């Protein structure tokens, strides 16, 4: 049997979530230590004896034994999980309580509690995302820093501060109170959305990490969907959005690892299963009065996913959806995408006019895709010199070698016309 490459990482998240429930969120560091310890033990033992029949259960049992030791040794010196404290005080109830806590469905809930706890309103969004990645996904500070193109030291500092806030929150999030869950969900959606986008569009040149970020976002949104409290139209729309985008991943990089522009992608590579799943979720997300930006973004992605080619795309529908999105959340990046859709529908001249009309257009100036979009529209109307200048501008803003190579290819396509 071979282990999935994400096995240790994900088990670390499961163990830490369960142990934090047991020890109390103020003992987060202790929970992380015990989880790490169980993984170390697995490494030491398995390398000599091979994998046990059920690696996950083995880890769980190991962590449980360690946890009971800690509880026995320190129950007078420390206070533990507030809801469980009284059950942990006597030997009669200690082991059954711990056993119950490590049951599969209990761990599922613990991960959800942790996810909601990480999205603490006193934490900035980036800190929430970093916490989720470290505690629930088992990434180290160095790995997260690499994905976000940050220094490890800066990220460690941010995570340490965030953990302090989390540890000071006394209780893990209470899943039993629907009103509280409902008020925390938007922050959780936002964090998972950012996590997915970082993987999909992020600046990190290491494509493997990026795919993993998207996979984690999908896993966590599914976790949310499996719990009654998380099954809202917004969660379904967010999940739909992720599926519909993830379905296009196989065509985004060519054999050499270079980015393929959206318009040139081989659509036969798109993952039909993921598209169907995204459509199903999007359909279910229409159940209710709630309309979120996730609904609109998912609907746009669905139009693309179902179109046989860029030419046979319902661009008018896409422009309308972007209009609705802009009304809900005005942003120059969204307006730029709308202008690109207009250019497809009504020609590059109209597209350029729309770009010129974008309010606070100056905020796009450091965004390589802005210059690239202008270049494509200029090229579309035969203004090769302008197109070349814009591509050169985009190249100077490229954030990694992959972006640079793909822009260089487009620049090379700007030959003076023969006429």
């Amino acid at each position, binding site marked *: 049997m071979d*282990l999935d*490459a994400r096995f240790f990482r994900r088990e670390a998240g499961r163990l830490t979530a369960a142990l934090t429930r047991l020890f109390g969120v103020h003992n987060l560091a202790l929970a992380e230590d015990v989880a790490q310890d169980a*993984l170390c033990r697995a*490494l*030491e033992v398995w390398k*000599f004896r091979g994998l046990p029949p059920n690696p996950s259960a083995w880890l769980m049992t190991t962590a449980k034994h360690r946890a009971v030791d800690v509880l026995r040794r320190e129950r007078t010196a420390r206070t533990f999980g507030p809801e469980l404290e009284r059950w942990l005080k006597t030997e009669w109830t200690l082991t059954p309580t711990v056993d119950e806590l490590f049951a599969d469905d209990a761990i599922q809930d613990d991960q959800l509690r942790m996810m909601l706890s990480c999205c603490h309103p006193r934490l900035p969004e980036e800190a929430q995302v970093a916490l989720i990645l470290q505690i629930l996904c088992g990434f*180290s500070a160095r*790995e997260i820093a690499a994905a976000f193109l940050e220094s490890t030291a800066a990220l460690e500092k941010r995570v340490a501060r965030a953990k302090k806030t989390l540890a000071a929150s006394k209780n893990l999030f209470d899943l039993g109170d629907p009103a509280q869950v409902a008020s925390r969900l938007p922050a959780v959606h936002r964090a998972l959305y950012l996590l997915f986008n970082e993987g999909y569009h992020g600046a990190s040149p290491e494509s493997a990490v990026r795919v993993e970020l998207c996979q984690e976002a999908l896993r966590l949104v599914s976790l949310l969907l499996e719990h009654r409290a998380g099954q809202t139209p917004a969660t379904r729309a967010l999940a739909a959005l992720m599926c519909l985008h993830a379905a296009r991943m196989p065509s985004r990089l060519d054999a050499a690892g270079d980015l393929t522009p959206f318009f040139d992608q081989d659509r036969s590579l798109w993952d039909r299963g993921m598209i169907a799943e995204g459509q199903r979720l999007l359909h279910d997300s229409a159940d209710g009065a709630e309309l979120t930006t996730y609904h609109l973004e998912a609907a746009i992605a669905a139009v693309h996913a179902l179109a046989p080619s860029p030419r046979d795309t319902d661009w008018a529908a896409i422009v309308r959806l972007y209009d609705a999105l802009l009304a809900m959340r005005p942003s120059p990046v969204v307006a730029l995408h709308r202008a690109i859709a207009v250019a497809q529908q009504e020609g590059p001249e109209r597209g350029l006019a729309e770009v010129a009309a974008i309010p606070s257009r100056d905020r796009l100036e450091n965004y390589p895709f802005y210059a690239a979009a202008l270049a494509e529209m200029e090229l579309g109307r035969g203004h090769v010199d302008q197109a070349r200048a814009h591509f050169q501008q985009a190249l100077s803003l490229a954030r990694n070698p992959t972006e640079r190579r793909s822009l260089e290819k487009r620049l090379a396509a700007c030959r003076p016309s023969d006429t």
Partner: protein
Amino acid sequence: MSQFLFIYRGGMPAGTSPAEMQQQMGRWMTWLKDLGEKGFVKDPGQPLERAGKVVAGKQKTVTDGPFAEKDLVSGYTLVEAKDLEHATELSLGCPIYTYAGSVEVRPVAKM
């Protein structure tokens, strides 16, 4: 063929990520499997617990582990090789060196 004991010292440094631990485990399994398939492994050996006791001196003073990370014996393997040079060469493939660990290669005394 003679027998040699590989004594492994040192473990993973603090702050090693779960993914790195899993990769390291994979390297060990591949290495031991490969040695075994070539017929060099007499006994793959056992891991050792970190905690333990040291009993020393005439007074038989008992002290508790844990021990310093670099001195900690984390496991052993019994290997068969032509001679000490050959056994040492076999130890060069051990993944323990990825993380500041060491292998002590000791011939098992004959007779």
